[in-house]
């Protein structure tokens, strides 16, 4: 369900942080899908701002590899850098969207929501309406596959905040779905 990175990424990170250029290139290639998709989900798919932010996040990681202190936590570190960039951009975009129409690009929308109608489209639209912090929590937990502890570490918040953010996100999504005429389907947590 969640994304994985290859097992030897820690060794790559160790060599990259020691200044080995080839290892840094390989590490970036390995992290790129995770970073790009995480940023895109947090900022909101369908906007050039998300693509721009993803690119900036990769550059942030490229610049920061040399200062990576704990290669064993390279995935969490990369997600922290990416999430920080994504939250900054998504907050700016939310403020701007109060003054103008949201910067969604029809070309990107057509690409990202091809053939999607009904419930799936409603879920995506509802997700984009969540506050950035809730989106980030959901993405780190359910897409990037971090534990609640790791998510708290990446977001710099408490474990309780992660739990309440995720619950709040699911609750708001259910409400949005209902407003759009769809009944939320739920399962007990232990059954998922």
């Amino acid at each position, binding site marked *: 369900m969640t994304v994985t990175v290859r097992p030897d990424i820690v060794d790559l990170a160790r060599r990259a942080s020691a200044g080995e250029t080839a290892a840094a290139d390989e590490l970036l290639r390995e992290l790129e899908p995770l970073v790009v998709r995480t940023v895109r989900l947090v900022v909101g798919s369908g906007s050039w701002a998300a693509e721009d932010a993803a690119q900036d996040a990769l550059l942030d990681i490229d610049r920061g590899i040399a200062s990576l202190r704990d290669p064993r936590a390279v995935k969490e570190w990369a997600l922290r850098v990416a999430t920080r960039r994504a939250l900054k951009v998504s907050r700016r975009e939310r403020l701007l969207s109060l003054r103008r129409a949201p910067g969604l690009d029809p070309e990107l929308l057509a690409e990202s929501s091809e053939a999607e109608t009904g419930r799936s489209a409603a879920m995506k639209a509802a997700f984009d309406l969540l506050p950035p912090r809730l989106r980030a929590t959901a993405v780190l937990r*359910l897409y990037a596959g971090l534990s609640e502890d790791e998510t708290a570490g990446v977001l710099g918040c408490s474990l309780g905040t992660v739990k309440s953010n995720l619950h709040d996100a699911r609750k708001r999504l259910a409400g949005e779905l209902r407003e759009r005429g769809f009944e939320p389907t739920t399962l007990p947590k232990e059954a998922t």
Partner: protein
Amino acid sequence: MTTQNASAISLDELANTLKSYAGPAHPRRLPVRHRRRPWRIAWAAAALVLAFVGAAYAAGFNPFPGIAAANHPATSTDTLPASLTAHIAEFSSGMERYGHGRLLPDTARFITQLPSGMRFYTIATSAGGLCLATVRSSGGSGLECGGSLSKSRPITIASERPNRATPPVSYGLAMDGVTAVSFKAHGHQTTVPVKDNVWAYEGQNGALRSVTVHWRNGSMQTLIDGR
């Protein structure tokens, strides 16, 4: 799936939505931006998009369509200073890594020089992009890259401040037909002329807002309303 508690969406459905919503593994192609912000106060926004399809050039392929000041045979004035060449080599590897091609220094064309001594060069990229390179009289250099200019994006916007002793300068390329660029800076409405396809503004800190392009035929085009 059962409908047990409709107060919150299931983790499964949310996870599946995120998975299907995540998109491709690489950023969709955007203009590459490179900002010099040694004091963390320079800001930059590249405003460059798709190719300007249009005039055929009698002299053959022109890597700088719509930029007359750059459309000339290479001369000794087009030779890039060593400081910029080193900067290009470093920047080029980063661009290639992200699939934006590399800079082609041989295509460099000097376009103009400001009274302050700041010199401007255009440089093409192997991916059909366009870069504006700057060299200050002190030797510092900057690079801003993206796609070609077009009617919908007729100018580029960049800003830099190499040190605290120097006022920030905002500048960019302007395609043929653009005579001036106006904007709000620090609360004041300002208009600067375009000379040799370059506009530049020195002396104020902060972002430019409500950027408007003035065309030769008298029409105006607002690019970044309210920002």
